[in-house]
């Protein structure tokens, strides 16, 4: 408890884009509930904060911490450990914290290639071909920057996590519902779900929330939405568009497929699935309309990057975690 009697709230971003923070602000007037019920103890995006202040807090003194972003470097891991120690409830918030997210695609490459891409490609102005140095001496003293880990990890691969809230970003109405629940728990009107629960999401697949018409799926060709006139009412996968809806957890309201964009799988695997990509692989390959190995191969040529497509948001949390080259 803080001096004003309110429980403490924290939010942190690790390897993330900032979209999760925006999604929290996007709950509109509900943000006032957060302010009314919580004392914001640590939230670097919203207010000035120093790590040493967090380090000085008593253990378990923060009631609720929302942690977004994956663990890419030792700074991310340090704050993950710190927030775990200081928080009663630690929520892996968003696709990166729950599954590794888009930063997790870096697990397809060794870290030196990731750095090379960032510092040498055509969009980078780096005439002297400089690289970031972990330590650098300047007249005022030594500067340090965080060290990159060989692979990206999801939050629960680094510290124990109480709840998982998927999405890239989590949908605002789902965030609002979770905040409502926590407020009700504080008022003694509700109970927290069992630890390890996925909150702010459904239990079935995106297809269950999608309004498009579904028939028997038979695919002769995989295409991208710009290649064909997309039927506005027919299932996207039936039209040969790679849609991850069938293997992805519901909760978003099928916003993308309803708007004509295929599901990219940001809500992660549905219940009882340990590997999102494997389930998606199953769903997509099974409906190929051919019994001829050569023709099947030709149809599969329409999927230019299978690992990137199947594990767009979940490579670190998948069974294999990374490609072999990431460890080379």
């Amino acid at each position, binding site marked *: 408890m803080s001096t004003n009697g309110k429980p403490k709230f924290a939010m942190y971003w690790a390897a993330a884009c900032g979209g999760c923070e925006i999604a929290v602000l996007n709950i509109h007037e509900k943000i006032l509930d957060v302010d009314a019920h919580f004392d914001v103890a640590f939230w670097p995006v919203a207010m000035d904060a120093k790590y040493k202040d967090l380090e000085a807090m008593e253990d378990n003194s923060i009631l609720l911490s929302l942690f977004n972003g994956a663990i890419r470097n030792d700074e991310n*891991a340090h704050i993950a450990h710190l927030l775990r120690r200081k928080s009663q409830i630690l929520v892996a918030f968003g696709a990166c914290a729950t599954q590794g997210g888009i930063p997790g695609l870096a697990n397809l490459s060794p870290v030196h290639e990731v750095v090379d891409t960032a510092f040498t490609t055509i969009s980078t102005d780096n005439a002297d071909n400089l690289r970031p140095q972990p330590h650098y001496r300047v007249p005022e003293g030594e500067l340090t920057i965080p060290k990159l880990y060989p692979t990206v990890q999801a939050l629960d691969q680094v510290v124990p996590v109480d709840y998982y809230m998927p999405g890239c970003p989590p949908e605002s109405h789902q965030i609002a519902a979770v905040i409502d629940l926590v407020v009700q728990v504080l008022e003694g009107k509700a109970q927290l779900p069992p630890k390890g629960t996925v909150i702010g999401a459904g239990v079935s697949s995106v297809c269950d929330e999608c309004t498009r018409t579904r028939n028997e799926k038979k695919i002769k060709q995989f295409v991208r939405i710009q290649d064909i006139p997309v039927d506005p009412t027919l299932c996207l996968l039936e039209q040969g568009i790679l849609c991850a809806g069938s293997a992805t957890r519901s909760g978003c309201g099928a916003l993308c497929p309803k708007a004509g964009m295929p599901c990219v799988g940001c809500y992660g695997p549905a219940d009882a699935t340990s590997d999102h990509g494997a389930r998606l692989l199953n769903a997509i390959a099974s409906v190929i309309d051919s019994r001829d190995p050569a023709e099947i191969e030709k149809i599969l040529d329409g999927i230019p990057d299978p690992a990137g497509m199947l594990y767009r948001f979940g490579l670190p949390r998948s069974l294999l975690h990374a490609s072999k080259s990431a460890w080379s």
Partner: protein
Amino acid sequence: MTDTFEPVIVGFTCNWCSYRAADLAGMARIKYAPNVRLIRLMCSGRLDPQFVFKALAEGADGVLISGCHPGDCHYIEQNYKTMRRFALLKRTLAALGIEPTRVRLVWASAAEGNILAEEIDRMVAEIKALGPLNWKQRMMKDKGHLSAVSSQPTAVTGGAQ
């Protein structure tokens, strides 16, 4: 690789054909490499790619998938689904750096104990030449790296990002 390396191969067999082919190979006293641990499924179509990923992640050096010849499926056409999934699985494994030799699909009817035995021998020899996969060790090394760094005082001090 050293001569002492004995690959661990997980073999998924179909109740109606390849499992019986393995049985037949045994009854016919056909000698083949003992490296495969067979798991019986009701159909190769039951094979979820998660089984393959899990086997590789937890220590297998290779995975053998076997089922009825196309057209002979006890469940009409489920082995065609296996054929399609295997094609995409192969591409995915290649992108993850796993050599194609390590995961293979073999059609073997209940009468083809000799074919299954030959395929197993060939697979074991090829994986021996490749060496151990060591996926679990690679992942553990990553974990060790994480705990080693995070238990030390971090290099990061001062203000937030």
